[in-house]
């Protein structure tokens, strides 16, 4: 497979912004760029066992990425076993029927490969990047853990990764400043029983309780090929790759169909207030609202609301709080989108000598202003241009988290169409300034939100 093949543009760009030399007419500042089309060519097929497969060619470097999404995340966990989807993810690297413990990594490192995985509320993903001559090894390893994970699983394996995951929790949450706020936030936004109520990392007692039997049941229920999708992308030949995928994944047994998740209704009816203490110098305020789920009407507009409020030095909150008044050290805003629900979060850290109350007053003023008056065309254009550029930037890598393989799998999982790039970008391009105002008004009500404050522990409260 050859490097000697002519380089095929992995992306086809059409339209005015297509790869022209810089000396050709660039869009004048002040005008939005003419729309360009992004295409990521792919082929797809489904194996008899239900595994959906997507192939994408890109020969820019002699590397290929094998990317699997299992359509299960922490939202499928049950009470008393929170954190299990993520603990299970760790077990996927511990060997399988024909791969001895420890061999998954040593075999890959021997061919110059790297790998990783991650768990979120709605999905778990895994990727292996290898030089293209080692594609078959990657497919063997990926298929073996899909088909034969339980053959080598033991209670001792579960124990070993349980300790690792507990240390991940300590490192990423408990020992990190403000780390527990993220956990408190979703507990306040989503009522008990809602699948987004508990943290993906899980609660310590639940991690302790997770058993070998839980692993067996979870694998059988959620790790069947019909509940997964596989993307192979990079320096590959599609026909040969298809044969290899059929060879290695064809014998993985089909499982029972997984019921699609129900989407529970969820709403805040009042202001939810809570105060946490932490070993920190400065307080921090989190304001959060429940908002439309990923790709639902309002979701894209809220991304732009976040930009107008806190994206860059000229955004309204940054400019007032951090730049002009200098009463805050930092401020951020984001629409955090999920398959069952989303939330919009504003996070601000007051400067020494300033209070959460002072900064909250300014935030409220700016949100009210945006609810009454549409942003300027310039503000919208600035945000759109940055979003468009981010779509280009996301094309630079094939493998790993956020590479093209991962994005094809994400779009396939959420929309059924791997190449949903243009439709996604089109959601933003269709918006007008008044849509942004309307979204701020509809989704950021002052009387139905979470107000979480982190205050310094008395012992570390030394701020002057």
């Amino acid at each position: 497979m050859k490097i000697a093949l002519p380089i095929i543009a992995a992306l086809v760009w059409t339209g005015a912004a297509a790869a022209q030399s810089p000396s050709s007419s660039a869009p004048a500042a002040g005008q939005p760029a003419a729309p360009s089309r992004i295409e990521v060519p792919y082929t797809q097929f489904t194996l008899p066992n239900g595994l959906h497969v997507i192939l994408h060619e890109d020969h820019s470097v002699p590397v290929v990425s094998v990317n699997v999404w299992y359509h299960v995340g922490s939202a499928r966990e049950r009470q008393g076993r929170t954190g299990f989807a993520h603990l299970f993810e760790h077990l996927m690297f511990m060997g399988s029927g024909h791969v001895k413990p420890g061999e998954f990594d040593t075999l890959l490192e021997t061919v110059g490969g790297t790998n990783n995985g991650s768990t979120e509320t709605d999905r778990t993903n895994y990727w292996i990047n290898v030089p293209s001559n080692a594609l078959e090894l990657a497919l063997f390893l990926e298929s073996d853990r899909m088909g034969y994970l339980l053959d080598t699983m033991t209670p001792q394996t579960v124990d070993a990764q349980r300790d690792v995951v507990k240390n991940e929790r300590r490192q990423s949450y408990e020992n990190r400043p403000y780390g527990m706020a993220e956990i408190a936030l979703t507990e306040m936004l989503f009522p008990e029983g809602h699948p987004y109520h508990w943290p993906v990392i899980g609660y310590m007692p639940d991690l302790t309780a997770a058993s070998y039997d839980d692993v067996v049941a979870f694998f059988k229920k959620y790790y069947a090929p019909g509940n997964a999708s596989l993307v192979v992308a990079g320096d590959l030949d599609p026909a040969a790759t298809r044969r290899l995928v059929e060879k290695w994944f064809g014998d993985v047994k089909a499982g029972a169909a997984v019921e699609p998740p129900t989407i529970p209704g969820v709403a805040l009816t009042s202001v939810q207030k809570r105060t946490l203490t932490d070993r920190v110098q400065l307080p921090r305020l989190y304001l959060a609202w429940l908002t439309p789920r990923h790709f639902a009407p309002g979701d894209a507009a809220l991304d732009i609301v976040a930009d107008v409020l806190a994206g860059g030095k000229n955004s309204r909150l940054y400019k007032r709080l951090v730049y002009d008044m200098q009463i805050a050290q930092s401020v951020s805003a984001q629409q955090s989108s999920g398959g069952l629900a989303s939330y919009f979060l504003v996070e601000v850290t007051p400067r020494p000598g300033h209070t959460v109350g002072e900064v909250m007053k300014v935030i409220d003023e700016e949100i009210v202003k945006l609810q009454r008056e549409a942003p300027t065309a310039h503000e919208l254009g600035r945000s759109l241009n940055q979003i468009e550029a981010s779509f280009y930037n996301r094309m630079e890598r094939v493998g790993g988290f956020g590479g093209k393989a991962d994005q094809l799998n994400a779009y396939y999982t959420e929309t059924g169409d791997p190449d949903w790039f243009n439709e996604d970008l089109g959601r933003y391009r269709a918006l007008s300034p008044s849509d942004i105002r309307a979204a701020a008004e509809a989704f950021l009500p002052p009387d139905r939100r979470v107000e979480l404050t982190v205050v310094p522990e008395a012992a570390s409260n030394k701020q002057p």
Partner: protein
Amino acid sequence: MRPSHLVVLAALLAGAAVGAQAPDRSKPPSAGPAPALHLPAVQKRQLSNGLPVWIVELHEVPVAQVNLVAFSGSGDDPSGRFGVTSLTTSMLEEGAGGRSALQIADAVDFLGADLGAGATFDASAVRLHVPVARLADALPIMADVVLRPTFPQDELDRLRQQRLTALLQARDDPAAIIPLAFARTLYGTAHRYGTATTGTAETMKSFTVADLRARYAAIFRPANCALLVVGDVMPDRVVPLLESSFGRWTTSGAAAPITLAAPPERSRREVYIVDKPGAPQTQVRIGMVGVPRSTADYFPIQIMNTILGGSFASRLNMNLREKNGYTYGATSGFDMRASAGPFAAAAGVQTDKTSESLKEFFNELNGILQPVPADELARAKNYVALRFPSGFESTGDISRRLEEALIYRLPDDYFAKYVQNIEAVTAADVRRVAQKYIQTGKFAVVVVGDRKVIEPGIKALNLGPINNLTVDDIFGPAAAASR
């Protein structure tokens, strides 16, 4: 879902045919011959003022990366002025040419571009990433930032306050404290590497606009800089754009790079505990002063460190994470700079396993002094050599490689010979560099954790004298960080 039914049907038939025979899983499929390495060609040009320009064409995605690199960094900060280079470079974007800080940010954001300025110990840089259709609009802004910064007093005051507050916040985070505590322990307060690139609260408060202007003039001269362009550009069309933005830049003057004094010599192993009451994990760094980037042992060190703690399957990670579950991950690394930077083995370990973890760290650090088995050596060499091509994928990847080549004056055939240099490393080389640089008897063992819980266990290990430090010893008193 939108796949056509025909495609699905064809897949079903094809799948049924192969499903009949299961593949032979008794041994993993072997890899074919490694793909030939095709490095991107570097086209070297020069502007009329002598400013070198290195260009790599990469046409997959319509974006461009343009970096202006200056060959002076925080390592050249004069004594008593630690942090001046870092603050000077950050101030470049806070007013330049006829534009205010807000105008620069607005123009850059509106183009969908990213523009950033900063310094490491060895270099300073202004970096632009932009959709190529907007490159011609973005370059004049970048040129203002590089050539015509105005250093407004009110922006300096604002940035200073921001940095002082960030320093105050760093006191909260064991993961932020540990690198500073480790650097301070190895190099002391007099050597530049003993203090963060951003300096201390005391120095941050002292800098004036005149200081920054002087530092700027010393660093940003065409004779001390180079331009890199990587992306969807054609040299004959991009060079004139660069010429019109940077070609008339003729500032001269010179500042001799500072030769750093030798770091203090450590004669025995010592332990340093920075107290962080209540911490559920202990941050650990163990090591000593390592090597400069120019070391002749560069390639053997890469392999030795890969085996020790440079990959997931390395000894430290396998032991502390996979076998014992004490940590989410353990690593080691040589930070190579113009002068000898630190070598460290590192992890965040659970508080009640701190002494057990330190014991395992030393088991592996001592173990690497012994001969390395052939299969482990082969795996490490393959890991480093075979994934080398993947480091040339994005505009960011390639520009980082070019910066490295420029800053450390690597030979023209450096990348072409990289793989063969890795392949040439022998078991004897690995053992030699391990014995030379892993001197466990002279290590500093620095931990940030809950002292009253961890100290008894550490004491029992008899690693060496124990020094108790506070966060104030690393950062100065908290009050000093505010106004």
